[in-house]
């Protein structure tokens, strides 16, 4: 069933294969991704409300993704605007997670999975041939559906994990951990028990711990795949507040099944269906006046 699709997509001039990323339309030099210093030193506390830094945006062009022979994403092109929250909604299996995982190249960790197309972080093609996947993932952090702190590590070590695991030196770990926990609004709850195991926290706290862990490596973009679906409403609300804070510093992409959540946190909302991007518009528009009838059916609960 996928073959015809696959063919047309590969013929499509827009779906540049990942291996020949440096085509004419992308004159960007193959430099490694910008160093994280762009944001370092600009760690905000919860009280700083103004935009301190400008995170880069992400622009996806002609993305196709496959699991073996299954064609999961079909020619998706979408812009993620800097320092904005973009929500991705759509029925189960519509490919939201897959798109997300293509953005930081986690997709290729699945055996048999591959992707073609172009994903630009600012001016860098993350699928460019000279680009190190490790650098991509440091610039584009990810928070998962189920909180997944490292079970052998203390709260402190969990937050420091990204730095320690990667042997990043020359950073005041204590300071960075405190900043990150504050950034994830978890500091006050854990500051007296930093040496206790991370899995001893509640689910909501664990998820904020995972967010702290992600921002500790100072990425520029944060991808969140249903970060609240395992949490109760109060913990969810906390994370949503946190997301609004975080967008001062990061570009945020969030997958959610909860439409109220998308309405609450997202600046723009993208609706996916069966591997295709149906509509991407300002959130209010998507929910009140969608241009596509399928979007309307979905957001009004007629299907999905």
């Amino acid at each position, binding site marked *: 069933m996928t073959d015809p699709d696959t063919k047309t997509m590969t013929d499509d001039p827009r779906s540049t294969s990942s291996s020949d990323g440096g085509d004419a339309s992308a004159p960007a030099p193959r430099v490694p991704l910008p160093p994280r210093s762009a944001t370092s030193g600009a760690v905000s506390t919860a009280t700083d409300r103004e935009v301190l830094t400008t995170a880069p945006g992400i622009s996806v062009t002609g993305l196709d993704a496959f699991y073996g022979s299954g064609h999961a994403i079909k020619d998706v092109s979408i812009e993620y605007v800097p320092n904005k929250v973009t929500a991705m909604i759509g029925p189960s299996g519509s490919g939201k997670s897959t798109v997300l995982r293509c953005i930081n190249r986690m997709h290729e960790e699945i055996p048999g999975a591959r992707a073609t197309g172009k994903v630009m972080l600012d001016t860098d093609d993350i699928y460019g041939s000279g680009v190190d996947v490790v650098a991509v993932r440091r610039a584009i952090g990810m928070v998962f559906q189920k909180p997944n702190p490292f079970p052998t590590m203390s709260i402190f070590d969990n937050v420091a994990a990204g730095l*320690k*695991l*990667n042997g990043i030196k020359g950073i005041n770990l204590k300071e960075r951990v405190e900043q990150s926990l504050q950034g994830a609004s978890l500091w006050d709850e854990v500051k007296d028990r930093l040496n206790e195991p991370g899995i001893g926290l509640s689910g909501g706290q664990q998820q904020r711990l995972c967010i702290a862990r992600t921002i500790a490596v100072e990425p520029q973009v944060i991808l969140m795949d249903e970060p609240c679906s395992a949490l109760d409403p109060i913990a969810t609300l906390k994370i949503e507040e946190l997301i609004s804070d975080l967008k001062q510093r990061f570009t945020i992409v969030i997958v959610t099944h909860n439409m109220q959540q998308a309405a609450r946190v997202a600046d723009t909302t993208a609706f996916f269906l069966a591997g295709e991007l149906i509509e991407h518009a300002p959130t209010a528009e998507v929910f009140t006046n969608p241009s596509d009838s399928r979007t309307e059916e979905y957001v009004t609960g007629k299907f999905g």
Partner: protein
Amino acid sequence: MTALGQLTPRRRITDRVMRIVLAIGTAIALIPLIAVIYYLLSKGLGAWSIDLFTKDPTGNFLGDQGGIKSALLGTIEMVALASAIAIPFGWGVALYLVEYGRKGRFASTVRYFVDVMTGVPSIVFGLFVYATLVLSGWGGSSFSGWKGSVALALLMLPVVTRSAEVVLLLVPDALREAALALGTPRWRVTLRVVLPTALPGLVTGSLLAVARAAGETAPLLFTAAAVNGTTFNLGERMNSLPVQIYNDVQSPSDALVQRAWGSALALVTLILLTTLVARLASRRSRLS
């Protein structure tokens, strides 16, 4: 009351009968185990003395027959060396299979051979080492402790590998993904996240292999052979508890048979201690 339905008398009787049958079956299965322990304790404890553990066997039939010091130390030394060989290799193979090989053809082939090796009788490993290392006089001597260790290591390897693989598969993929998404290279994820998470389970599985190796006679008979004196040189012939028991129990001397029971109890105690440590390790496990 009728909504839930009534247990018919027949079903109640069937249930009771099944319960009794299973209980009897369990009891019957326990009889040999209890008998072994009873014999070991009643015959072995009587043979235990300070001398048993502090003196080497003399080799005499009559008069002073000595203890089992060389056998006890030999077993510990040879099993330690065997573990030092088999555990790193076994963990390495398991890490490869789980973290890198997964469903590849090479990995499946390796997995198949490991399975076959698990079923190979221990005497075959002894024969193999005898044919390759002992007869050729490799390393200067024919029989020696390290050759016994090699035979034991071959025996342990598939058990260690298999148990390690099972434990590594229990490490949730979510943890690997979390680490990868932080920009950690895969080898570091393996060493710093997967391995520590799986460690208690890895230790447990390996110690069970250690316990099994400690009790093996066949691989040692024609590799380390036996000798009376204690030695700490693994290049020399070496005594071991199973071989000591094997020799003593065949002797016409009642005192030596008695010593065999003492040695057997010592061996079982050693294995019990290892298993106990294994249980303690598994209790620290964070994997369900």
